[in-house]
């Protein structure tokens, strides 16, 4: 059963506009969430994270929002740039199971110049 879900396989956005990527989770034990970015033929790279004690974390053009009551998080990219075109995965670690990470299926973002 998928504990972390990304229901949008793809997203296209014009350069300069906002990109919003969404993620839902089912396990209320998760208390830390991460976003990874992946370019073709490369490994995923860590982008930004958020602890469950916060509802927002910002790093430059990237902001992650967490809504614990809805078990939902989102990644906002403003302004979007062509170099942001990649697959984005959200993930949550299970602290009581060897720090296993549960990953969503990914959203492929295309930023159109």
């Amino acid at each position: 059963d998928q504990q972390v879900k990304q229901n949008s396989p793809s997203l296209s956005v014009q350069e300069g506009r906002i990109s919003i990527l969404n993620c839902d989770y089912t396990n209320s034990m998760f208390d830390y969430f991460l976003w990874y970015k992946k370019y073709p033929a490369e490994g995923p790279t860590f982008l930004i994270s958020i602890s469950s004690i916060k509802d927002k974390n910002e790093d430059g053009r990237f902001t992650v929002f967490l809504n614990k009551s809805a078990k939902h998080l989102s990644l906002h990219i403003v302004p979007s740039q062509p170099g942001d075109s990649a697959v984005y995965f959200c993930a949550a670690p299970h602290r009581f199971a060897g720090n296993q990470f549960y990953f969503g299926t990914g959203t492929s973002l295309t930023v159109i110049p």
Partner: protein
Amino acid sequence: DAGITQSPRHKVTETGTPVTLRCHQTENHRYMYWYRQDPGHGLRLIHYSYGVKDTDKGEVSDGYSVSRSKTEDFLLTLESATSSQTSVYFCAIANAVGDTQYFGPGTRLTVL
């Protein structure tokens, strides 16, 4: 970038042959992980290690075994490769529970 290498980076093999993939780290991290990435499935955990000689199964462990005899090396073995094991395999490391995982560059395995 975390010091993680994977070898080989690409491999083509035939059904029924054994295959071993290697992950090597220079960060002295305790935790090491093997994932496979397939379209529509994201990243799925195969096996992980929480110390030398300490390993456990992940979500999709059938057909795979692992070994970790040194902190820096984590080996993934397909005893008898099948076409369903055609995938991209990623190794990851983490220093402690709750820490971010850092990924290697991946190994593309094709089983004919």
